């Protein structure tokens, strides 16, 4: 049933689609992180913005991806920019919530001690709050990344799709091999990226490893 030789014959295309899938995942997540930093900064200085910002990000999150791709065609066209804008918008809710939760989760005793030791407000933020928020911040980035890996496949409607291209073409041509290859590689990619972030987190937050 599975046509093993298909894989060998299409190695080059598989590699191309891998790069495409990676590109369409990492660029939106990267841009999403930058935008979320900005939004988090706004929320931290102006708490009342939290409700409206997460509401807006939440509404974006509920729009079906197909609809968003279609809606963006008249604005930016049928291209990668379209996909990147749509995919970026889906990361915002997850990232902003985790960034804010990370900062809010820093124990108040730690902050009071930092104040009492004579940290200035900005030194306290960068040297206490940011590092201590990292585990939750990175957890958010992991979820956003895994979600985006899955969503990239839908961009096949824009002629992109990464591994989604194989899944879609497999359906059309009733070739189970192609669909399975696209599906499995997508899962492998999501898992691999997740492990990379786990590794980064372990390096950046050594104190979370050594619990007595």
């Amino acid at each position: 049933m599975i046509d093993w030789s298909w894989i060998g014959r299409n190695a080059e295309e598989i590699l191309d689609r891998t790069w495409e899938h990676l590109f369409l995942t990492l660029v939106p997540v990267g841009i999403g992180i930058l935008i979320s930093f900005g939004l988090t900064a706004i929320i931290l200085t102006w708490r009342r913005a939290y409700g409206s910002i997460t509401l807006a990000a939440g509404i974006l999150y509920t729009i079906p991806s197909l609809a968003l791709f279609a809606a963006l065609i008249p604005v930016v066209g049928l291209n990668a920019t379209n996909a990147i804008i749509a995919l970026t918008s889906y990361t915002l809710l997850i990232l902003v919530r985790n960034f804010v939760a990370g900062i809010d989760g820093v124990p108040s005793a730690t902050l009071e001690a930092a104040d009492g030791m004579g940290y200035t407000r900005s030194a306290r933020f960068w040297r206490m709050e940011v590092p201590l928020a990292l585990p939750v911040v990175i957890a958010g980035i992991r979820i956003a990344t895994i979600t985006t890996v899955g969503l990239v496949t839908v961009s096949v409607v824009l002629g992109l799709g990464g591994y989604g291209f194989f899944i879609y073409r497999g359906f059309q041509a009733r070739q189970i091999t192609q669909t399975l290859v696209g599906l499995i590689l997508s899962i492998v990619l999501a898992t691999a990226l997740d492990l990379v972030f786990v590794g980064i987190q372990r390096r950046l937050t050594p104190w979370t490893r050594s619990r007595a």
Partner: protein
Amino acid sequence: MSPQPMISLEGVTKMYPGLQRPAVDHLDLEVGEGELVTLVGPSGCGKTTTLKMINRIIEPTSGRILVNGQDALSVDAHELRRGIGYVIQQVGLFPHRTIAENIATVPVLLEWDKGRIRSRVTELVEIMGLEESMLDRYPSELSGGQQQRVGVARALAADPPIMLMDEPFGAVDPIVRSRLQEELLDLHRHLRKTIVFVTHDIDEALYLGTRVAILNMGGILEQYDTPAAVLSDPAGEFVTSFLGGERGLKRLALLPVSEVEISPGPVVDVRATPEEALEVMRRHGVDWVGLIQDGHITGWVWQSELDGRRLAELEPKEFLVSLTPDSSLREALDAVVTNRARVGVIADQGGYLGMIDLEAIAETITE
């Protein structure tokens, strides 16, 4: 009465927004150099607010605060705080920093050079009875008592003249707490820091304080005096009820045995004759006698045991509790009531000093 004030609060008031009554109301308080002042009172009395206004964790609404002769409200808060050690109940060690890095916090902020920081950290490990092997670990790997020691070490790191401590021993178990209390008294004796210590535990306040400030709801200072004076002469009903029962016992805990005139007691040298021993007992009106050998007391025997035998042949019963001139009268009382002879024996390294009985203890309290 008190030495040069290190901290002085003048008419300090704290109003929290939305509250009708001030948390602290026109408080005047002076803390002399080298004092260990305890702030004590029921919850809501403003003791923690008062403490936190000294290093401006809480900004006063009005009034003046002088720290080390300097107007605390006119300097940068973070500069002020680097010169004041700060210890809080939840410890608040920085979870992402090793013990060594935690201790070095203020020296790093003050930009000491690396060698000086390292040797200071080593010194503090010594002072606080920590272990070198802890230095590379993270706070979560330490027990509560160890964490609080690190918290105190961190506060001491830049050798500030002033320490503020907000219920620092509130979250550790009683055994560790009493050890930490003794260590703090030791530290205070040796380093001569000016310490302001907040607690809700009147016994802790009386035990630690050179002076005790008793606060009532709304930051009203009810009494500010030495523990002995507070206990013997409480200023009004609030203080009396806050001191609770057993005031006599609490006073005994504060007074050393050396305060009382020690009597030589009914003792004889083991080389004395039985007749001489009987004479001592008769003179003291007791039916037992303590035995002295080479300047040390070996124990005591009943009159009935003598029976014409030589004293050296008898097997004396030991005094289970031995006191020193530094023991508290409360310990002396314990020694008295747990001993059949109804006395406590006092000795130091040099040997037997004398005895104390119930009457002597009671007289000190009722004077």
